[in-house]
């Protein structure tokens, strides 16, 4: 045929385009990497974990090592690249860890102790209050509501969220609030992993202004 060679080249062009469009990311496929050896971290990357020792093997030049993409620590639990800090270690900068443990079920011994003895180490000023407000909005307001009335969108579903400015909740001391943020109380779970002690004291300062409102 006259047009046979033209048809062939046309088909070739379409194939090239189709092949190239398969390089882009889509759904479960992250897309073709241009320079994989420069994309994948050799040191442990905290938030990625590739446990397959042969992943990216087609890139490796030496035969006796794990493959190019392998990034996981076999000595850690679950072969993670992250570890929890060793127990009883203290962060270099910042406040000392909080020592009062969580009360056993039914007891309020440490809660009462904290309520009576703990004092806020942070000064009472605008900056601390603004910081506390930001932290409160991010971590507490989903349940406790913007003004501490217990009417946050999550609180409505979670149930049993108190109003800071009513009843005995308006009387709670700074130590009490700090202890509850750290260890939880009643239905509230502990927030120690999300806010560090200094941040907790900032939140306490802000919550105290919510307690005083009418």
């Amino acid at each position, binding site marked *: 045929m006259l047009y046979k060679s033209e048809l062939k080249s046309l088909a070739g*062009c379409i194939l*090239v*385009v189709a092949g*190239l*469009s398969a*390089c*882009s*990311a*889509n*759904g*479960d*496929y*992250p*897309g*073709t*990497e*241009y*320079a994989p050896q*420069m*994309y*994948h*971290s*050799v040191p442990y*990357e*905290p*938030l*990625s*974990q590739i446990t397959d020792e042969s992943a990216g093997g087609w890139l490796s030049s030496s035969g006796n090592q794990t493959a190019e993409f392998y990034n996981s620590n076999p000595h850690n639990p*679950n072969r*993670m690249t992250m570890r929890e800090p060793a127990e009883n270690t203290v962060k270099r900068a910042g406040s000392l860890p909080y020592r009062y443990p969580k009360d056993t*079920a*039914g007891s*309020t011994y440490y809660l009462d102790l904290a309520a009576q003895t703990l004092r806020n180490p942070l000064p009472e000023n605008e900056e601390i209050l603004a910081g506390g407000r930001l932290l409160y*909005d*991010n*971590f507490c*307001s*989903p*349940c406790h509501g913007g003004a501490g009335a*217990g009417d946050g*969108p*999550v609180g*409505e*579903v*979670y*149930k*049993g*969220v*108190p*109003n800071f400015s*009513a*009843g*005995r*909740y308006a009387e709670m001391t700074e130590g009490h609030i700090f202890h509850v943020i750290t260890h939880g109380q*009643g*239905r509230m*779970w502990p*927030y120690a*992993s*999300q806010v560090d002690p200094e941040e907790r004291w900032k939140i306490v300062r802000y919550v105290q202004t919510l307690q005083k409102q009418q």
Partner: protein
Amino acid sequence: MSFIGKTGPDLKSLAPVAWLICLLLFNGMEAFAQDGDGNVPPAVEQDSDAAIEPSDSPQPVAAAGGIPDSEEAITQGRQLFNGNCKVCHAINEVVVGPALAGIHERRPVEWIHAFVKNSQKVIQSGDTYAVNLFNQYNKTQMPPFNFSDEEINSILAYIKNETDNPVQANSPAEAVDGNQQGGSGGGSGISSDYLAIIVAALLVVLLLVLVVLILVVAVLNKYLGQRADLDPADKEIVQGGVKVSDIVKSRPFIAFVIFLFVSILAKTVLDSLFLVGIQQGYQPEQPIAFSHKLHAGQYQINCNYCHTGVYKAKSANIPSVNICMNCHNTIKTESPEIQKLYSAVENNKPIEWVRIHNLPDLAYFNHSQHVNVGGVECQTCHGQIQEMEVVYQHAELTMGWCINCHRETEINAEGNEYYDKLVKLHNANTGEPFRVKDIGGLECSKCHY
């Protein structure tokens, strides 16, 4: 078999009698349960409490004894209830403590007073009901409340009012439905199906017009061809001066088609080549069907709540299961997706979320630097995450994309002495605003080292 056949009729004859007894018992109970106003309290779910109650209850409680039913008392009671009791009690469901609907009928008012004022005292006195209650609710202590008798009575008045006149509360599920309906209805005036039908109808009409026009031309041509009194020039036009096949075979036309084809092909190839190494649109399936639209959108949980590192560290962090459990110890516990959280906790095995944003290792990016210091919104790079059911990579994450932002973004260096002299120098030399590129935002080693 014959034995059963024998007794059968006997039982049947007894049945009406049994019915009568049942009816009588029921009526009697209803009469007991009726309060002063003669209102029959609605059936309230009391599954947990019913178990404790002795079988011969309801006891003749001093019905409405001392419980006021004035508006003021109910309002005061509502305030006190919301301020003090709501944390652990709801009217119709078990929260931390039992549901309180109908409490004034279940227990004597004196007992309630004593329990509210000091529950431990009542339990230690050996009161069977109190001890059973204490054990049933995992020995959770109800703290003592310093209420006066009137205050407790007003709370009881509120509870009684709520028991007798249950309010249809808007459940969150209904709210969601409402939102979704509003969303789909309000998006565009006409639905896409409707639009497609209109377009198809238009196309059909246009095609019909085309056919009619062609027919008209043919008829006219035929008519003109039959006429003999035309000059040769006109005749040429009538007989089809320009043939389609001539146009198709003409060199300029072929050249134009080839040019069009080659340029489209070249553009497609180039575009696809530029997509190599870019993961924009990557939307992997996650081990748990977590919806950002629900959590960040509907429930307005701040990104920082789960991504705790975003203000402090290089990585924003993927939350560990304990953060999920802050709410899901209670919320939606039956869902199979939430059950995956529980099995992760039980087996102490982290959930392996699939990482979506894989910035190449050759570039350094720090969240705290951008979010905390730079004040960049999460949505600037991650898109409208609060509307994503399943998260995908919104931005290109290419160098050009980074650099472009560094070129355009203005910096607020106020209150940061470190930049004071630089800002002064910058303002003396140029009238342009102080941007990221002016503090080294285009230096190679800022991101590549």
